Protein backbone atom coordinates (compact mmCIF):
# COMPACT_ATOMS: atom_id res chain seq x y z
CA UNK A 1 0.00 0.00 0.00
CA UNK A 2 1.60 3.19 -1.06
CA UNK A 3 0.61 6.45 0.43
CA UNK A 4 -0.79 7.79 -2.77
CA UNK A 5 -3.27 4.95 -3.23
CA UNK A 6 -6.77 6.35 -3.29
CA UNK A 7 -9.30 4.99 -0.80
CA UNK A 8 -12.20 7.33 -1.34
CA UNK A 9 -12.96 9.19 -4.53
CA UNK A 10 -15.71 11.76 -4.76
CA UNK A 11 -16.68 12.85 -8.27
CA UNK A 12 -19.08 15.69 -8.85
CA UNK A 13 -21.21 14.79 -5.84
CA UNK A 14 -24.35 16.80 -5.26
CA UNK A 15 -26.89 16.55 -2.49
CA UNK A 16 -30.01 18.63 -2.97
CA UNK A 17 -32.84 18.68 -0.50
CA UNK A 18 -36.21 19.58 -1.96
CA UNK A 19 -37.87 22.54 -0.24
CA UNK A 20 -40.95 24.67 -0.73
CA UNK A 21 -43.97 23.67 -2.75
CA UNK A 22 -46.01 24.83 -5.66
CA UNK A 23 -46.49 28.29 -4.21
CA UNK A 24 -42.80 29.04 -3.79
CA UNK A 25 -42.10 27.51 -7.19
CA UNK A 26 -44.58 29.93 -8.76
CA UNK A 27 -42.88 32.80 -7.00
CA UNK A 28 -39.67 31.74 -8.68
CA UNK A 29 -37.97 30.60 -5.50
CA UNK A 30 -35.47 27.75 -5.67
CA UNK A 31 -36.99 24.29 -5.25
CA UNK A 32 -34.01 22.73 -3.51
CA UNK A 33 -31.32 23.54 -1.00
CA UNK A 34 -28.02 22.62 -2.53
CA UNK A 35 -26.34 21.25 0.58
CA UNK A 36 -23.56 19.82 -1.52
CA UNK A 37 -23.24 21.21 -4.99
CA UNK A 38 -20.74 19.42 -7.18
CA UNK A 39 -17.66 18.55 -5.19
CA UNK A 40 -14.77 16.33 -6.19
CA UNK A 41 -11.82 15.16 -4.17
CA UNK A 42 -9.79 12.08 -3.45
CA UNK A 43 -8.78 10.72 -0.06
CA UNK A 44 -5.59 8.70 -0.04
CA UNK A 45 -4.99 5.82 2.29
CA UNK A 46 -3.74 6.89 5.68
CA UNK A 47 -4.50 10.52 5.01
CA UNK A 48 -6.23 12.75 7.52
CA UNK A 49 -8.30 15.47 5.93
CA UNK A 50 -10.17 18.30 7.56
CA UNK A 51 -13.49 19.46 6.15
CA UNK A 52 -13.70 23.07 7.23
CA UNK A 53 -16.43 25.63 6.88
CA UNK A 54 -19.21 27.64 8.48
CA UNK A 55 -22.52 26.16 9.45
CA UNK A 56 -24.54 25.42 6.34
CA UNK A 57 -21.50 25.02 4.10
CA UNK A 58 -22.26 21.36 3.46
CA UNK A 59 -19.44 19.81 5.45
CA UNK A 60 -21.69 17.56 7.51
CA UNK A 61 -23.72 16.61 4.44
CA UNK A 62 -20.48 15.68 2.71
CA UNK A 63 -19.58 13.50 5.68
CA UNK A 64 -22.94 11.77 5.42
CA UNK A 65 -22.38 11.13 1.73
CA UNK A 66 -18.98 9.61 2.43
CA UNK A 67 -20.58 7.14 4.85
CA UNK A 68 -23.60 6.45 2.67
CA UNK A 69 -25.96 7.84 5.27
CA UNK A 70 -27.39 9.82 2.39
CA UNK A 71 -27.12 9.08 -1.29
CA UNK A 72 -25.99 11.82 -3.64
CA UNK A 73 -28.55 13.44 -5.91
CA UNK A 74 -25.89 13.32 -8.58
CA UNK A 75 -22.28 12.19 -8.96
CA UNK A 76 -20.34 9.23 -7.67
CA UNK A 77 -18.47 8.18 -4.58
CA UNK A 78 -16.17 5.20 -4.73
CA UNK A 79 -14.70 3.45 -1.74
CA UNK A 80 -11.77 1.15 -2.40
CA UNK A 81 -12.71 1.02 -6.05
CA UNK A 82 -16.37 0.21 -5.44
CA UNK A 83 -19.14 2.69 -6.21
CA UNK A 84 -20.96 3.01 -2.88
CA UNK A 85 -23.84 5.01 -4.29
CA UNK A 86 -25.37 1.78 -5.61
CA UNK A 87 -24.26 -0.93 -3.19
CA UNK A 88 -26.79 -2.92 -1.18
CA UNK A 89 -27.11 -6.09 0.81
CA UNK A 90 -23.90 -7.91 1.66
CA UNK A 91 -21.68 -5.31 -0.03
CA UNK A 92 -23.31 -2.58 2.04
CA UNK A 93 -22.86 -4.61 5.18
CA UNK A 94 -19.18 -5.00 4.40
CA UNK A 95 -18.88 -1.27 3.74
CA UNK A 96 -20.51 -0.57 7.11
CA UNK A 97 -17.77 -2.51 8.87
CA UNK A 98 -15.08 -0.56 7.05
CA UNK A 99 -16.34 3.02 7.31
CA UNK A 100 -17.35 4.53 10.62
CA UNK A 101 -18.59 7.79 12.11
CA UNK A 102 -17.51 9.47 15.31
CA UNK A 103 -20.44 11.52 16.48
CA UNK A 104 -20.53 15.15 17.47
CA UNK A 105 -22.52 14.75 20.65
CA UNK A 106 -21.38 11.86 22.82
CA UNK A 107 -24.32 12.42 25.15
CA UNK A 108 -26.71 11.43 22.36
CA UNK A 109 -24.67 8.91 20.45
CA UNK A 110 -25.16 6.17 23.01
CA UNK A 111 -28.53 4.69 23.82
CA UNK A 112 -29.15 5.60 27.48
CA UNK A 113 -30.79 2.23 28.09
CA UNK A 114 -27.71 0.15 27.38
CA UNK A 115 -24.49 -0.35 29.29
CA UNK A 116 -21.21 0.56 27.70
CA UNK A 117 -20.53 -3.14 27.17
CA UNK A 118 -23.80 -3.54 25.27
CA UNK A 119 -23.04 -0.47 23.17
CA UNK A 120 -19.62 -1.83 22.25
CA UNK A 121 -20.98 -5.33 21.57
CA UNK A 122 -23.51 -4.19 19.02
CA UNK A 123 -21.07 -3.76 16.12
CA UNK A 124 -19.37 -7.03 17.05
CA UNK A 125 -22.67 -8.90 16.95
CA UNK A 126 -23.46 -7.37 13.60
CA UNK A 127 -20.11 -8.39 12.21
CA UNK A 128 -20.76 -11.91 13.56
CA UNK A 129 -17.67 -11.92 15.73
CA UNK A 130 -17.89 -15.03 17.91
CA UNK A 131 -19.05 -14.37 21.44
CA UNK A 132 -15.83 -15.75 22.92
CA UNK A 133 -13.77 -13.20 21.10
CA UNK A 134 -15.90 -10.15 21.90
CA UNK A 135 -14.76 -9.42 25.42
CA UNK A 136 -11.12 -9.47 24.39
CA UNK A 137 -11.80 -7.07 21.55
CA UNK A 138 -13.72 -4.75 23.81
CA UNK A 139 -10.81 -4.61 26.22
CA UNK A 140 -8.37 -4.09 23.40
CA UNK A 141 -10.28 -1.14 21.97
CA UNK A 142 -10.73 0.39 25.42
CA UNK A 143 -6.95 0.35 25.79
CA UNK A 144 -6.70 1.98 22.40
CA UNK A 145 -8.86 4.93 23.41
CA UNK A 146 -6.98 5.24 26.69
CA UNK A 147 -9.61 3.93 29.02
CA UNK A 148 -7.37 1.09 30.16
CA UNK A 149 -9.31 0.24 33.29
CA UNK A 150 -12.13 -1.13 31.14
CA UNK A 151 -13.85 -3.19 33.84
CA UNK A 152 -14.64 0.01 35.65
CA UNK A 153 -16.69 1.34 32.74
CA UNK A 154 -18.26 -1.57 30.94
CA UNK A 155 -21.20 -2.16 33.25
CA UNK A 156 -22.07 1.49 33.62
CA UNK A 157 -24.66 3.46 31.77
CA UNK A 158 -23.83 6.48 29.60
CA UNK A 159 -25.21 9.00 32.11
CA UNK A 160 -22.71 7.79 34.69
CA UNK A 161 -19.75 8.88 32.56
CA UNK A 162 -18.25 12.27 31.88
CA UNK A 163 -18.30 13.84 28.42
CA UNK A 164 -14.65 13.12 27.76
CA UNK A 165 -15.05 9.46 28.73
CA UNK A 166 -18.22 9.13 26.66
CA UNK A 167 -16.56 10.54 23.59
CA UNK A 168 -13.78 7.96 23.95
CA UNK A 169 -16.43 5.24 24.19
CA UNK A 170 -18.04 6.61 21.04
CA UNK A 171 -14.62 6.44 19.40
CA UNK A 172 -14.09 2.94 20.71
CA UNK A 173 -17.34 1.81 19.16
CA UNK A 174 -16.32 3.31 15.84
CA UNK A 175 -12.94 1.60 15.99
CA UNK A 176 -13.88 -1.79 17.38
CA UNK A 177 -14.31 -3.38 13.95
CA UNK A 178 -10.94 -1.98 12.87
CA UNK A 179 -12.30 0.14 10.02
CA UNK A 180 -10.20 1.63 7.22
CA UNK A 181 -12.03 4.90 7.17
CA UNK A 182 -13.44 7.17 9.86
CA UNK A 183 -15.42 10.38 9.63
CA UNK A 184 -15.37 12.49 12.80
CA UNK A 185 -18.03 15.18 12.94
CA UNK A 186 -16.96 17.95 15.33
CA UNK A 187 -16.12 15.32 17.94
CA UNK A 188 -15.03 17.77 20.63
CA UNK A 189 -17.43 20.65 20.16
CA UNK A 190 -19.68 19.44 22.98
CA UNK A 191 -16.82 18.89 25.40
CA UNK A 192 -15.26 21.20 27.91
CA UNK A 193 -12.02 22.82 26.88
CA UNK A 194 -9.93 21.07 29.51
CA UNK A 195 -10.83 17.59 28.26
CA UNK A 196 -10.89 18.29 24.52
CA UNK A 197 -7.18 17.82 24.19
CA UNK A 198 -7.44 14.29 25.59
CA UNK A 199 -9.94 13.24 22.94
CA UNK A 200 -7.95 14.94 20.18
CA UNK A 201 -4.78 13.21 21.29
CA UNK A 202 -6.49 9.82 21.27
CA UNK A 203 -7.78 10.59 17.78
CA UNK A 204 -4.30 11.46 16.53
CA UNK A 205 -2.73 8.47 18.18
CA UNK A 206 -5.29 5.93 17.00
CA UNK A 207 -5.12 7.25 13.48
CA UNK A 208 -1.40 6.85 13.34
CA UNK A 209 -1.44 3.45 15.01
CA UNK A 210 -4.18 1.95 12.83
CA UNK A 211 -3.18 3.72 9.62
CA UNK A 212 -6.72 5.07 9.38
CA UNK A 213 -7.93 7.30 6.65
CA UNK A 214 -9.84 10.04 8.45
CA UNK A 215 -12.04 12.98 7.70
CA UNK A 216 -12.37 15.52 10.47
CA UNK A 217 -15.34 17.86 10.09
CA UNK A 218 -15.05 21.14 11.96
CA UNK A 219 -15.61 24.84 11.84
CA UNK A 220 -12.48 25.38 13.91
CA UNK A 221 -9.31 25.75 11.91
CA UNK A 222 -7.13 25.45 15.00
CA UNK A 223 -8.57 22.01 15.79
CA UNK A 224 -8.32 20.87 12.19
CA UNK A 225 -4.73 21.92 12.10
CA UNK A 226 -3.99 19.86 15.17
CA UNK A 227 -5.30 16.61 13.65
CA UNK A 228 -5.19 16.95 9.86
CA UNK A 229 -2.35 17.36 7.42
CA UNK A 230 -4.71 18.34 4.62
CA UNK A 231 -7.74 20.62 4.70
CA UNK A 232 -10.67 21.11 2.36
CA UNK A 233 -12.46 24.41 2.86
CA UNK A 234 -16.10 24.50 1.85
CA UNK A 235 -18.44 27.40 1.25
CA UNK A 236 -22.13 27.03 0.35
CA UNK A 237 -21.88 23.45 -0.81
CA UNK A 238 -18.74 23.90 -2.86
CA UNK A 239 -15.06 23.44 -2.27
CA UNK A 240 -13.15 26.71 -2.31
CA UNK A 241 -9.69 25.52 -1.37
CA UNK A 242 -8.01 22.16 -0.85
CA UNK A 243 -4.44 21.64 0.23
CA UNK A 244 -1.90 20.99 2.99
CA UNK A 245 -3.17 22.49 6.25
CA UNK A 246 0.07 24.26 7.08
CA UNK A 247 0.18 26.04 3.72
CA UNK A 248 -3.43 26.98 4.13
CA UNK A 249 -2.91 28.48 7.56
CA UNK A 250 0.31 30.21 6.65
CA UNK A 251 -0.80 31.61 3.33
CA UNK A 252 -4.47 31.19 2.54
CA UNK A 253 -5.19 31.76 -1.15
CA UNK A 254 -8.94 31.94 -1.60
CA UNK A 255 -10.42 35.22 -0.33
CA UNK A 256 -12.79 33.24 1.87
CA UNK A 257 -10.02 31.20 3.42
CA UNK A 258 -8.15 34.44 4.03
CA UNK A 259 -11.05 35.83 6.00
CA UNK A 260 -11.50 32.55 7.83
CA UNK A 261 -7.88 32.35 8.91
CA UNK A 262 -7.89 35.99 9.97
CA UNK A 263 -11.05 35.53 12.00
CA UNK A 264 -9.83 32.70 14.20
CA UNK A 265 -9.22 34.16 17.66
CA UNK A 266 -6.15 32.99 19.48
CA UNK A 267 -5.69 32.66 23.23
CA UNK A 268 -3.06 35.40 23.41
CA UNK A 269 -3.36 39.06 24.27
CA UNK A 270 -1.30 40.04 21.26
CA UNK A 271 -3.33 39.45 18.15
CA UNK A 272 -4.50 41.38 15.15
CA UNK A 273 -7.70 43.38 15.52
CA UNK A 274 -7.72 44.46 11.87
CA UNK A 275 -11.07 44.41 10.13
CA UNK A 276 -11.68 41.17 8.27
CA UNK A 277 -11.23 41.15 4.50
CA UNK A 278 -14.82 40.13 3.97
CA UNK A 279 -18.16 41.82 3.53
CA UNK A 280 -20.88 41.66 6.15
CA UNK A 281 -23.76 39.32 5.89
CA UNK A 282 -24.14 35.63 5.91
CA UNK A 283 -24.35 32.97 3.24
CA UNK A 284 -27.91 32.01 2.34
CA UNK A 285 -27.92 28.36 1.27
CA UNK A 286 -31.43 28.74 -0.17
CA UNK A 287 -30.45 31.48 -2.48
CA UNK A 288 -26.75 31.47 -3.36
CA UNK A 289 -25.47 34.09 -5.80
CA UNK A 290 -24.80 33.18 -9.42
CA UNK A 291 -21.32 32.29 -10.56
CA UNK A 292 -18.98 32.15 -7.59
CA UNK A 293 -21.11 31.64 -4.49
CA UNK A 294 -18.77 33.78 -2.39
CA UNK A 295 -18.79 36.81 -4.64
CA UNK A 296 -21.37 38.82 -2.63
CA UNK A 297 -19.02 38.90 0.37
CA UNK A 298 -15.75 38.89 -1.55
CA UNK A 299 -13.67 42.09 -1.48
CA UNK A 300 -11.95 41.01 -4.70
CA UNK A 301 -15.00 40.13 -6.76
CA UNK A 302 -15.07 41.27 -10.36
CA UNK A 303 -17.50 40.99 -13.23
CA UNK A 304 -16.51 37.50 -14.23
CA UNK A 305 -17.33 36.10 -10.78
CA UNK A 306 -21.01 36.80 -11.32
CA UNK A 307 -21.29 34.81 -14.51
CA UNK A 308 -18.83 31.96 -14.27
CA UNK A 309 -18.40 29.41 -11.52
CA UNK A 310 -14.67 29.18 -10.87
CA UNK A 311 -13.13 25.79 -11.56
CA UNK A 312 -10.15 24.43 -9.65
CA UNK A 313 -6.77 26.02 -10.30
CA UNK A 314 -3.62 24.33 -9.12
CA UNK A 315 -1.33 26.51 -7.03
CA UNK A 316 1.61 24.57 -5.68
CA UNK A 317 0.08 21.65 -3.78
CA UNK A 318 -3.23 23.34 -3.57
CA UNK A 319 -6.42 23.53 -5.57
CA UNK A 320 -8.17 26.89 -5.39
CA UNK A 321 -11.59 27.57 -6.82
CA UNK A 322 -11.24 31.26 -7.56
CA UNK A 323 -10.95 33.28 -10.73
CA UNK A 324 -8.02 35.19 -9.23
CA UNK A 325 -5.94 32.07 -9.69
CA UNK A 326 -7.15 31.03 -13.13
CA UNK A 327 -4.27 30.17 -15.41
CA UNK A 328 -5.87 32.27 -18.11
CA UNK A 329 -6.20 35.20 -15.77
CA UNK A 330 -2.98 37.14 -15.38
CA UNK A 331 -4.15 39.93 -13.12
CA UNK A 332 -1.57 40.96 -10.52
CA UNK A 333 -3.81 40.01 -7.63
CA UNK A 334 -3.32 36.37 -8.52
CA UNK A 335 -0.38 35.88 -6.27
CA UNK A 336 1.37 32.54 -6.32
CA UNK A 337 -0.02 31.44 -9.66
CA UNK A 338 2.36 28.89 -11.10
CA UNK A 339 3.82 29.55 -14.49
Amino acid at each position, binding site marked *: MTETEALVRVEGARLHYPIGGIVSAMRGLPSAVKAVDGISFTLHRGESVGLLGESGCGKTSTGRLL*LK*LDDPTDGHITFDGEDITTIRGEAL*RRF*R*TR*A*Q*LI*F*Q*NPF*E*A*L*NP*RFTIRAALS*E*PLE*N*ARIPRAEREARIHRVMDLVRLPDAA*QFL*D*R*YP*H*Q*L*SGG*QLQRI*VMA*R*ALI*LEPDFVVADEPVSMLDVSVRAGVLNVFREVRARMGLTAVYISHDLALVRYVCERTIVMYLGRIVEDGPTEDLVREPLHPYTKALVAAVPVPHPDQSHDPLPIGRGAPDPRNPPSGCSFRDRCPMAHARCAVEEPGPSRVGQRLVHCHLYDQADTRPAARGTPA
Partner: protein
Amino acid sequence: MTNPDTPRRAGRLRRAFAGLRLPLHDPLAIAGLAIYAAFIVIAIFAPQIATHDPTEILFTDDFQLAADLRPGEDGYIMGTTTLGRDVFSQLVWGSRSALVIGLTAAFMVALIGSIVGVVAGYFGGWTDTLLMRLADVAFGIPFLPFVIVLAAFLEPSIWNVVIAMALILWRDTGRVIRSQTLTLRTRAYVEAARISGSSDVKIILRHIVPNVLPLSFLYGSIAIGWAILTEASISFLGFGDPTSISWGYMLQDAYASQALSKRSYYWFVPPGLCIILIVSAGFFISRGYEKILFPKLDR
Protein backbone atom coordinates in the same frame (compact mmCIF):
# COMPACT_ATOMS: atom_id res chain seq x y z
CA MET B 1 -19.45 10.28 37.12
CA THR B 2 -22.06 9.41 39.66
CA ASN B 3 -22.85 6.07 41.24
CA PRO B 4 -19.61 4.28 40.53
CA ASP B 5 -21.04 0.79 40.53
CA THR B 6 -24.56 -0.44 40.35
CA PRO B 7 -24.90 -4.00 41.66
CA ARG B 8 -25.65 -6.10 38.60
CA ARG B 9 -28.07 -8.60 40.14
CA ALA B 10 -30.37 -6.06 41.65
CA GLY B 11 -30.10 -4.08 38.45
CA ARG B 12 -31.33 -6.99 36.40
CA LEU B 13 -34.37 -7.51 38.59
CA ARG B 14 -35.15 -3.85 38.52
CA ARG B 15 -34.81 -3.80 34.77
CA ALA B 16 -37.22 -6.70 34.42
CA PHE B 17 -39.69 -4.67 36.40
CA ALA B 18 -38.88 -1.57 34.44
CA GLY B 19 -39.70 -3.58 31.32
CA LEU B 20 -43.32 -3.68 32.44
CA ARG B 21 -43.18 0.09 32.78
CA LEU B 22 -45.93 0.25 35.34
CA PRO B 23 -46.43 3.84 36.41
CA LEU B 24 -45.84 3.14 40.08
CA HIS B 25 -44.85 6.66 41.08
CA ASP B 26 -48.16 8.41 40.55
CA PRO B 27 -50.81 7.99 43.27
CA LEU B 28 -53.71 8.21 40.85
CA ALA B 29 -52.16 5.61 38.59
CA ILE B 30 -51.69 3.33 41.59
CA ALA B 31 -55.36 3.81 42.43
CA GLY B 32 -56.21 2.90 38.84
CA LEU B 33 -54.07 -0.21 38.99
CA ALA B 34 -55.70 -1.17 42.30
CA ILE B 35 -59.18 -0.83 40.79
CA TYR B 36 -58.10 -3.04 37.92
CA ALA B 37 -56.59 -5.58 40.28
CA ALA B 38 -59.85 -5.68 42.23
CA PHE B 39 -61.93 -6.21 39.09
CA ILE B 40 -59.54 -8.85 37.82
CA VAL B 41 -59.89 -10.76 41.08
CA ILE B 42 -63.68 -10.47 40.89
CA ALA B 43 -63.69 -11.63 37.27
CA ILE B 44 -61.49 -14.63 37.96
CA PHE B 45 -63.52 -15.77 40.95
CA ALA B 46 -66.88 -14.80 39.48
CA PRO B 47 -68.34 -18.34 39.80
CA GLN B 48 -67.41 -18.37 43.50
CA ILE B 49 -68.48 -14.83 44.26
CA ALA B 50 -71.77 -14.82 42.38
CA THR B 51 -74.64 -16.15 44.41
CA HIS B 52 -76.69 -17.29 41.43
CA ASP B 53 -76.43 -18.06 37.77
CA PRO B 54 -76.81 -14.58 36.26
CA THR B 55 -79.15 -15.80 33.51
CA GLU B 56 -81.24 -18.08 35.67
CA ILE B 57 -84.85 -16.99 36.20
CA LEU B 58 -85.46 -17.16 39.91
CA PHE B 59 -88.56 -17.90 41.88
CA THR B 60 -89.55 -17.13 45.40
CA ASP B 61 -90.40 -19.81 47.93
CA ASP B 62 -94.02 -19.55 47.05
CA PHE B 63 -93.21 -20.24 43.40
CA GLN B 64 -93.80 -16.68 42.34
CA LEU B 65 -91.41 -15.07 39.87
CA ALA B 66 -88.76 -13.33 41.94
CA ALA B 67 -89.31 -10.12 40.01
CA ASP B 68 -88.26 -6.64 41.09
CA LEU B 69 -87.20 -7.62 44.55
CA ARG B 70 -85.48 -4.91 46.53
CA PRO B 71 -81.90 -5.43 47.80
CA GLY B 72 -81.84 -7.73 50.79
CA GLU B 73 -85.30 -9.03 50.13
CA ASP B 74 -85.32 -12.83 50.18
CA GLY B 75 -81.53 -12.79 50.53
CA TYR B 76 -80.82 -11.25 47.09
CA ILE B 77 -77.94 -8.94 47.88
CA MET B 78 -78.80 -6.38 45.22
CA GLY B 79 -82.30 -7.46 44.46
CA THR B 80 -83.57 -8.93 41.20
CA THR B 81 -84.59 -7.79 37.75
CA THR B 82 -88.07 -7.65 36.31
CA LEU B 83 -87.42 -11.07 34.75
CA GLY B 84 -86.33 -12.41 38.10
CA ARG B 85 -82.56 -12.52 37.69
CA ASP B 86 -80.07 -11.75 40.43
CA VAL B 87 -78.55 -8.27 39.97
CA PHE B 88 -75.49 -8.95 42.11
CA SER B 89 -74.55 -12.04 40.15
CA GLN B 90 -75.02 -10.18 36.88
CA LEU B 91 -72.79 -7.42 38.15
CA VAL B 92 -70.07 -9.89 39.13
CA TRP B 93 -70.25 -11.78 35.84
CA GLY B 94 -70.38 -8.51 33.96
CA SER B 95 -66.85 -7.71 35.10
CA ARG B 96 -65.67 -10.71 33.06
CA SER B 97 -66.96 -9.48 29.74
CA ALA B 98 -65.89 -5.94 30.54
CA LEU B 99 -62.31 -7.01 31.24
CA VAL B 100 -62.10 -9.48 28.40
CA ILE B 101 -63.34 -6.89 25.95
CA GLY B 102 -61.32 -4.06 27.46
CA LEU B 103 -58.04 -5.90 27.67
CA THR B 104 -58.17 -7.67 24.33
CA ALA B 105 -59.28 -4.52 22.55
CA ALA B 106 -56.56 -2.52 24.25
CA PHE B 107 -54.02 -5.14 23.35
CA MET B 108 -55.10 -5.18 19.73
CA VAL B 109 -55.19 -1.41 19.47
CA ALA B 110 -51.77 -1.00 21.07
CA LEU B 111 -50.27 -3.82 19.06
CA ILE B 112 -51.61 -2.86 15.65
CA GLY B 113 -51.09 0.84 16.26
CA SER B 114 -47.51 0.33 17.42
CA ILE B 115 -46.58 -1.92 14.53
CA VAL B 116 -48.13 0.43 11.98
CA GLY B 117 -46.59 3.49 13.64
CA VAL B 118 -43.10 2.05 13.97
CA VAL B 119 -43.07 0.62 10.46
CA ALA B 120 -44.43 3.80 8.88
CA GLY B 121 -42.14 6.07 10.88
CA TYR B 122 -39.01 4.01 10.51
CA PHE B 123 -39.18 3.09 6.85
CA GLY B 124 -40.91 6.21 5.57
CA GLY B 125 -41.42 6.59 1.83
CA TRP B 126 -44.31 4.78 0.21
CA THR B 127 -44.78 2.44 3.19
CA ASP B 128 -45.44 5.49 5.30
CA THR B 129 -47.70 7.08 2.72
CA LEU B 130 -49.74 3.92 2.30
CA LEU B 131 -50.17 3.28 6.02
CA MET B 132 -51.00 6.87 6.82
CA ARG B 133 -53.60 7.06 4.05
CA LEU B 134 -55.12 3.91 5.57
CA ALA B 135 -55.15 5.73 8.91
CA ASP B 136 -56.92 8.65 7.23
CA VAL B 137 -59.56 6.24 5.98
CA ALA B 138 -59.94 4.84 9.50
CA PHE B 139 -60.30 8.40 10.79
CA GLY B 140 -63.11 8.93 8.34
CA ILE B 141 -65.19 6.02 9.57
CA PRO B 142 -67.63 6.88 12.37
CA PHE B 143 -66.93 4.43 15.12
CA LEU B 144 -70.27 3.51 16.70
CA PRO B 145 -72.21 3.09 13.43
CA PHE B 146 -69.36 0.94 12.19
CA VAL B 147 -69.71 -1.40 15.16
CA ILE B 148 -73.44 -1.65 14.58
CA VAL B 149 -72.95 -2.45 10.90
CA LEU B 150 -70.36 -5.01 11.85
CA ALA B 151 -72.79 -6.56 14.32
CA ALA B 152 -75.31 -6.77 11.50
CA PHE B 153 -72.87 -8.61 9.24
CA LEU B 154 -71.47 -10.91 11.88
CA GLU B 155 -73.31 -12.69 14.61
CA PRO B 156 -74.07 -10.38 17.53
CA SER B 157 -71.13 -11.04 19.82
CA ILE B 158 -69.00 -9.18 22.31
CA TRP B 159 -66.08 -9.77 19.94
CA ASN B 160 -67.57 -7.38 17.42
CA VAL B 161 -66.45 -4.55 19.61
CA VAL B 162 -62.94 -5.94 19.80
CA ILE B 163 -62.78 -6.42 16.06
CA ALA B 164 -64.14 -2.95 15.39
CA MET B 165 -61.70 -1.37 17.78
CA ALA B 166 -58.82 -3.28 16.24
CA LEU B 167 -59.94 -2.20 12.77
CA ILE B 168 -60.42 1.46 13.61
CA LEU B 169 -58.85 2.69 16.80
CA TRP B 170 -55.26 1.77 15.84
CA ARG B 171 -55.31 5.02 13.88
CA ASP B 172 -54.63 7.31 16.88
CA THR B 173 -51.97 5.03 18.32
CA GLY B 174 -50.42 4.57 14.90
CA ARG B 175 -50.22 8.30 14.19
CA VAL B 176 -48.66 9.17 17.52
CA ILE B 177 -46.20 6.31 17.49
CA ARG B 178 -45.22 7.16 13.96
CA SER B 179 -44.30 10.70 14.93
CA GLN B 180 -42.40 9.43 17.96
CA THR B 181 -40.55 7.00 15.71
CA LEU B 182 -39.74 9.78 13.27
CA THR B 183 -37.88 11.68 15.99
CA LEU B 184 -36.27 8.54 17.39
CA ARG B 185 -35.04 7.59 13.96
CA THR B 186 -32.93 10.73 13.79
CA ARG B 187 -31.37 10.15 17.22
CA ALA B 188 -27.65 9.84 16.99
CA TYR B 189 -27.62 6.45 18.66
CA VAL B 190 -30.03 5.02 16.10
CA GLU B 191 -27.80 6.33 13.36
CA ALA B 192 -24.84 4.86 15.23
CA ALA B 193 -26.49 1.45 15.23
CA ARG B 194 -27.08 1.78 11.51
CA ILE B 195 -23.45 2.65 10.87
CA SER B 196 -22.28 -0.23 13.01
CA GLY B 197 -24.20 -2.49 10.65
CA SER B 198 -27.32 -3.32 12.64
CA SER B 199 -30.21 -4.51 10.51
CA ASP B 200 -33.46 -2.56 10.43
CA VAL B 201 -35.25 -5.24 12.43
CA LYS B 202 -32.56 -5.16 15.08
CA ILE B 203 -32.59 -1.37 15.28
CA ILE B 204 -36.36 -1.36 15.62
CA LEU B 205 -36.45 -3.99 18.34
CA ARG B 206 -33.48 -2.67 20.25
CA HIS B 207 -33.57 1.08 19.91
CA ILE B 208 -37.03 2.11 18.76
CA VAL B 209 -39.54 -0.21 20.42
CA PRO B 210 -38.35 0.25 24.01
CA ASN B 211 -38.78 3.98 23.55
CA VAL B 212 -42.28 3.86 22.10
CA LEU B 213 -43.53 1.24 24.54
CA PRO B 214 -44.81 3.71 27.16
CA LEU B 215 -46.75 5.44 24.39
CA SER B 216 -48.26 2.13 23.32
CA PHE B 217 -49.24 1.48 26.92
CA LEU B 218 -50.70 4.96 27.20
CA TYR B 219 -52.90 4.43 24.17
CA GLY B 220 -53.66 0.89 25.26
CA SER B 221 -54.89 2.04 28.64
CA ILE B 222 -57.08 4.66 27.00
CA ALA B 223 -58.43 1.96 24.67
CA ILE B 224 -59.57 -0.20 27.61
CA GLY B 225 -62.00 2.47 28.68
CA TRP B 226 -63.12 3.05 25.12
CA ALA B 227 -63.79 -0.62 24.54
CA ILE B 228 -65.84 -1.03 27.71
CA LEU B 229 -67.80 2.11 26.97
CA THR B 230 -68.43 1.02 23.41
CA GLU B 231 -69.58 -2.42 24.45
CA ALA B 232 -71.90 -0.83 26.99
CA SER B 233 -73.29 1.56 24.36
CA ILE B 234 -73.79 -1.22 21.85
CA SER B 235 -75.53 -3.42 24.39
CA PHE B 236 -77.56 -0.50 25.61
CA LEU B 237 -78.70 0.18 22.06
CA GLY B 238 -79.68 -3.44 21.85
CA PHE B 239 -77.07 -4.61 19.35
CA GLY B 240 -75.13 -6.58 21.93
CA ASP B 241 -74.80 -10.27 22.52
CA PRO B 242 -77.97 -11.35 24.31
CA THR B 243 -76.35 -14.51 25.66
CA SER B 244 -73.56 -12.88 27.60
CA ILE B 245 -74.04 -10.69 30.61
CA SER B 246 -72.34 -7.34 30.53
CA TRP B 247 -72.87 -4.09 32.36
CA GLY B 248 -74.15 -2.51 29.19
CA TYR B 249 -76.65 -5.35 28.83
CA MET B 250 -77.80 -4.74 32.42
CA LEU B 251 -78.38 -1.08 31.67
CA GLN B 252 -80.31 -1.95 28.53
CA ASP B 253 -82.38 -4.50 30.43
CA ALA B 254 -83.10 -1.97 33.17
CA TYR B 255 -83.99 0.69 30.61
CA ALA B 256 -86.32 -1.62 28.69
CA SER B 257 -88.01 -2.65 31.94
CA GLN B 258 -88.62 0.93 32.97
CA ALA B 259 -86.43 0.48 36.03
CA LEU B 260 -86.19 4.24 36.51
CA SER B 261 -89.93 4.73 36.82
CA LYS B 262 -89.99 1.79 39.21
CA ARG B 263 -87.22 3.50 41.15
CA SER B 264 -85.13 0.33 40.93
CA TYR B 265 -81.89 2.25 41.42
CA TYR B 266 -80.24 -0.88 42.77
CA TRP B 267 -80.53 -2.33 39.25
CA PHE B 268 -78.90 0.30 37.04
CA VAL B 269 -76.74 2.37 39.37
CA PRO B 270 -74.23 -0.39 40.23
CA PRO B 271 -73.38 -1.31 36.61
CA GLY B 272 -73.18 2.39 35.79
CA LEU B 273 -70.81 2.91 38.68
CA CYS B 274 -68.72 -0.06 37.64
CA ILE B 275 -68.38 1.33 34.12
CA ILE B 276 -67.40 4.73 35.48
CA LEU B 277 -64.95 3.14 37.90
CA ILE B 278 -63.15 0.94 35.40
CA VAL B 279 -63.08 3.54 32.65
CA SER B 280 -61.66 6.16 34.98
CA ALA B 281 -59.17 3.63 36.30
CA GLY B 282 -57.97 3.24 32.72
CA PHE B 283 -57.51 6.97 32.42
CA PHE B 284 -55.73 7.16 35.76
CA ILE B 285 -53.25 4.62 34.52
CA SER B 286 -52.84 6.44 31.23
CA ARG B 287 -52.12 9.58 33.21
CA GLY B 288 -49.29 7.73 34.90
CA TYR B 289 -47.86 6.78 31.53
CA GLU B 290 -48.23 10.33 30.41
CA LYS B 291 -46.09 11.39 33.33
CA ILE B 292 -43.43 8.89 32.31
CA LEU B 293 -43.53 10.22 28.79
CA PHE B 294 -43.79 13.91 29.47
CA PRO B 295 -42.29 14.51 32.92
CA LYS B 296 -42.43 18.25 32.37
CA LEU B 297 -46.22 18.25 32.47
CA ASP B 298 -45.98 17.35 36.12
CA ARG B 299 -46.30 20.66 37.81
